[in-house]
């Protein structure tokens, strides 16, 4: 009897353990099965390099190059703004501030991470979009620039917390050696600590990239959602928003094409996951 219970619990825990594997497999299989038909029908090349997306026209065209480029540019822009600010904040938290101030700033970072994306979108719509409109004298402030700014704020917490951990784990002997050679605190940080923590910082950046490329709602609220080729002040559509914008009413080939966009997005995300894993493995192996 006792033995039977033990065996049963063992099996039960094993099943719980492999739920994550089953989930990943199911998601991958569903993405591939539902994403391939439209790509086959439209043609891989036409689908990925087509510059026109007219899914509801009488003679529909399904080219997603504008979405891919918008996602790539939007993510790059967010990284360009978010990484310096995030890295500097991480340096401050790890090397310059006292424990009390560090705890306060850290709480701020955690709270930034906890703010729901729709709230970022709302603030973007009400403050950012009108500001961009006025500053640059545009008819409409929605577009790539607004999305980049919102995304750069949203990826800050991932970059800060991961970089901070990496900086904290730099062996103090490295820094002490640098002081002994006459380097100042700041010189030590930039020439010793940051290079020593570079793989951890890279992991933080990749994590931020993943978050930026996958964000849908906040971007949907500020990017304008027209299928233009990317340009800072034009209304644009990201891979994520291309899906969510048309999901509620799409049917037939149009709906299948949305699944294909999701497959492309999924491919990007898996690539980022693998890169992240390689970086982390290499770090752990050191």
């Amino acid at each position, binding site marked *: 009897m006792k033995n039977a219970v033990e065996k049963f619990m063992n099996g039960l825990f094993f099943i719980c353990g492999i*739920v994550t594997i089953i989930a990943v497999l199911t998601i991958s299989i569903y993405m591939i099965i539902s994403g391939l038909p439209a790509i086959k029908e439209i043609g891989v090349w036409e689908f990925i390099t087509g510059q026109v997306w007219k899914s509801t026209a009488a003679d529909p065209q399904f080219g997603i190059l504008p979405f891919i480029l918008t996602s790539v540019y939007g993510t790059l822009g967010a990284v360009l703004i978010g990484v310096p600010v995030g890295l500097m904040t991480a340096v401050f938290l790890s090397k310059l501030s006292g424990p009390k101030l560090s705890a306060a700033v850290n709480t701020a970072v955690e709270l930034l991470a*906890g703010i729901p994306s729709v709230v970022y979108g709302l603030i973007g719509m009400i403050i950012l979009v009108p500001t961009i409109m006025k500053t640059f004298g545009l008819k409409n402030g929605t577009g790539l620039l607004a999305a980049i700014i919102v995304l750069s704020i949203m990826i800050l917490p991932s970059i800060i917390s991961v970089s901070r951990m990496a900086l904290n784990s730099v062996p103090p002997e490295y820094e002490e050696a640098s002081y002994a050679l006459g380097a100042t605190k700041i010189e030590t940080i930039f020439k010793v600590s940051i290079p020593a923590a570079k793989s951890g910082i890279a992991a933080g950046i990749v994590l931020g990239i993943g978050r930026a490329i996958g964000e849908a709602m906040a971007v949907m609220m500020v990017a304008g959602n027209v299928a233009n080729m990317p340009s800072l002040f034009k209304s644009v559509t990201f891979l994520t928003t291309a899906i969510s914008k048309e999901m509620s009413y799409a049917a037939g080939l149009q709906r299948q094409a949305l699944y294909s966009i999701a497959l492309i997005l999924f491919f990007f995300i898996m690539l980022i996951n693998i890169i992240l894993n390689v970086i982390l493995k290499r770090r752990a192996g050191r």
Partner: protein
Amino acid sequence: MNNRISAKRRAHSAILKGLIFLCSGITVVLLISLISYIFYRGLGNITWELLTTSRSALKNTIGILPNIIFTFYIILTTLVIVLPVGIGAAIYLNEYAENKRLVSVIEFAAETLTGIPSIIYGLVGYLFFCQRLKMGSSILAGSLTLVIMVLPTIVRTTQEALKTVPYSYREGAVGLGATKWYMIRTIILPSSLDGIVSGAILAIGRIVGESAALIFTAGTAYTLVTNYFDALGTSGGTLSVALYVYVSEHGEFNTGFAIAAILMMIVLFINYSTKLINKRLKKDR
């Protein structure tokens, strides 16, 4: 000593130091202004009527009571399912698994799940739960989708909690003749309760803030359904989803800010309680 450092080097250091302070300042000021603006615009719009009625096109009034209830139901359903599965998975990884390969595959799968964006969860949840399993757009389908989404969080926090239980406890229990399951039930799980609770709170935070995964799976409906079991089968939008719908589809920015203020209060509360638990955990050790 400082005099020997050249003016150029000193200027260089000063500029970089200035940049560091500027960037940290930006982060903090950003957060403070975001929170104060949300409360400034939102708190005044939280009225008793908003909180206790449903939206009525007839009377042209807005109420978010159904959305509050749906949010609560989705949190409840998701946790009821994800806690046993997640804790079970963590126990398996920490206490049972002997095959190192399998452990690393499971951990890799959990990391992969963390990286998948919520819109993909929404799509697959829609294809699998709503269509394949014929649940339609419902609270249950939404909750099941979120179960997969927050599973890695629960597994990770529980695993960390399990790791803090001293090895001698296990040896002591086994030495006294306890079976493995008895030892887990009576010694390991109670000792790691705080960690599990903090994982559950983190999961609540993610559920409350989620929108993209829920729009396709649980829908955006706002009809009041009070019976829990009826609600499981009906479509319903959570607070975050309602915020999106009110703002993007109706241009109701005041309602949007009211909901945003409520969400921010929840976020602040969650942050505060995880801090409290972590402090207790540290004191225990």
